[in-house]
């Protein structure tokens, strides 16, 4: 068990190394002078020199990379080219709304897509099943900003149930917070609901052919217990996998949703950073999200190993 954990942990290191290398090379491989690329055409020589200094562009490329990695290991992710503040501090200030949005979307996903997927598999070919299949195609096809605007048009502009845009942190009270985060959370979860309910359905269909499901039914257990306690538990691994790999898409959803609903989170920070060409900031956000992705998938992998001994001995 311990050796599996260790092996899996060690595998994450080269992955993160390549992430860091790609992010590093992204700027260095940009055609022309990277400082010029960041500063734009109207930059003064002094500005260019300041950027070179900030990013260490005057040193050989290998030592730039080494210096960059070791300063990150010390927790220094660099300073913003615009505000001169540590980028980590800027990220810390903006992460709250993003987390709130992501958690809201996950809650919607779980309470909507698990029952939908289970029902679809239970009545295979029935109405719910057709609905789930249709939803999964539509969910992959309709961009999140379109869903966001439909929700705004219906629930905020016409029905006036929710404010059109904006965000209130939890510290200003749960009511106002929930009032503003519900619509964006729903918009963001739409894609995830499509993905997870489809996977739940497929995984449940596989599991329900198994003997132990027949046994559970044969010994007279109620259908609900068979479905949710026996079948869904065993169907969980592919569902969890898809939640993990879906994280990357969740990130792009966050960026867009925050723009649509004007939420001051990480997504807005990244877009503003790009428009201002604040490279250290973009770099840090990409690294941290990629790190989170690797970590989430690591945790999911390890949780399989905990729940299923067969995986450990592969």
């Amino acid at each position, binding site marked *: 068990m311990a050796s599996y954990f260790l092996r899996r942990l060690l595998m994450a290191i080269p992955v993160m*190394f*390549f992430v860091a290398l790609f992010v590093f090379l992204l700027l260095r491989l940009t055609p022309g002078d990277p400082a010029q690329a960041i500063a734009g055409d109207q930059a003064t020589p002094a500005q260019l020199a300041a950027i070179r200094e900030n990013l260490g562009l005057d040193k050989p490329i290998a030592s730039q990379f080494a210096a960059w990695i070791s300063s990150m290991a010390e927790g220094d992710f660099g300073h913003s080219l615009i505000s001169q503040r540590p980028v980590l501090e800027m990220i810390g200030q903006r992460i709250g709304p993003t987390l709130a949005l992501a958690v809201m979307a996950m809650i919607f996903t779980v309470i909507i897509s698990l029952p939908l997927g289970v029902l679809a598999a239970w009545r295979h070919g029935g109405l719910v099943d057709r609905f789930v299949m249709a939803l999964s195609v539509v969910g992959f*096809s309709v*961009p999140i900003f379109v869903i966001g605007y439909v929700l705004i048009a219906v629930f905020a502009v016409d029905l006036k149930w929710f404010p059109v845009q904006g965000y209130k942190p939890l510290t200003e009270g749960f009511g106002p917070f929930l009032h503003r985060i519900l619509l964006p959370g729903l918009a963001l979860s739409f894609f995830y609901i499509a993905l997870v309910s489809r996977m739940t359905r497929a995984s449940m269909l596989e599991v329900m052919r198994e003997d132990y499901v027949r046994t559970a039914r044969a010994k007279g257990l109620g259908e609900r217990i068979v479905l949710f306690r026996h079948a869904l538990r065993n169907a969980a691994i592919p569902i969890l996998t898809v939640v993990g790999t879906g994280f*990357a898409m969740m990130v792009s959803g966050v960026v867009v949703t925050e*723009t649509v609903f004007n939420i001051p989170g990480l997504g807005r920070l*990244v877009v503003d950073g790009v428009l201002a060409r604040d490279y250290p900031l973009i770099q840090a956000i990409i690294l941290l*999200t990629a790190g989170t992705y690797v970590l989430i998938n690591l945790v999911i992998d390890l949780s399989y190993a905990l729940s299923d001994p067969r995986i450990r001995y592969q």
Partner: protein
Amino acid sequence: MSTPSNTVSGGLPRRRLLRNPPHWTTVLAVLVLLVVVAMAVFAPLLANFEPTKLNAAMRLKPASNIYWLGTDSFGRDLYSRVVYGARVSLLVGAGVATGAILIGLPLGLLAGWYRGIDGVLMRMMDGLMAIPGILLAIAIVALVRGGLITVIFAIMIPAIPQVVRLVRARVIAAREETYVDAAMLLGTRPAKLIWKHLLPTTIAPLIVQGTYMYASAILTEAALSFLGVGIGTEIPSWGNIMAEGRLYFALNHWLVFWPAIVLSLCILSINLLGDALRDRLDPKMQGRSP
């Protein structure tokens, strides 16, 4: 599983494609795509106005006989802009799918065949996959700037690992097949073996994957343009029409909704076509409900 008639004549994908009548959603999807392609190709004929023609006197007009879908905040004809927008989307989708396959296919073949480079190459691909595609694309567009080519490149890079993984998995599965063993025992050179025996097994899944990549590239381009980091606003794309329209969303929803509807229908149709191709080309899906 397969019916007897399938096993008798089910060899060639093309024959299988033509035998069973397609599902009505597939027919509808193909029709929608034909309309979108026609919009892109015949845009100058279909449009009523130059898509970039400003008209300050005609700002934010509702739909009428002259302006079929109304006008935007610069007095440009929305209908003409939506028609021209098809060009960018189709070009980006084609560029991304083709580029990712051209780069990913050889890498996948190499990784699947030569175990030595497999480990390193796949960790590289894992690393690339760990970076959320839209962030990578945003960063590339911001640094390189430039127009359509940059956007295609920026969306293509994060798509490459999908191709590599798919091709590699196919090659590894095919290596276990008897016909590959036979070819090796006969002394076939690796290059010929890869070209004649392994490459063909990857084509059907690549067509399906390519279709999905096409759809998701269109989606990403629209998202980039919507965020203001796509191709410049001088070329109308469904994404940047929406980005400009959202500032006047409260005034006129349709500035956002028309491009949104066409965009969503287009992506939906490509995805449906992909599903249909998958069901037809994959022998395992024959006779099975999706």
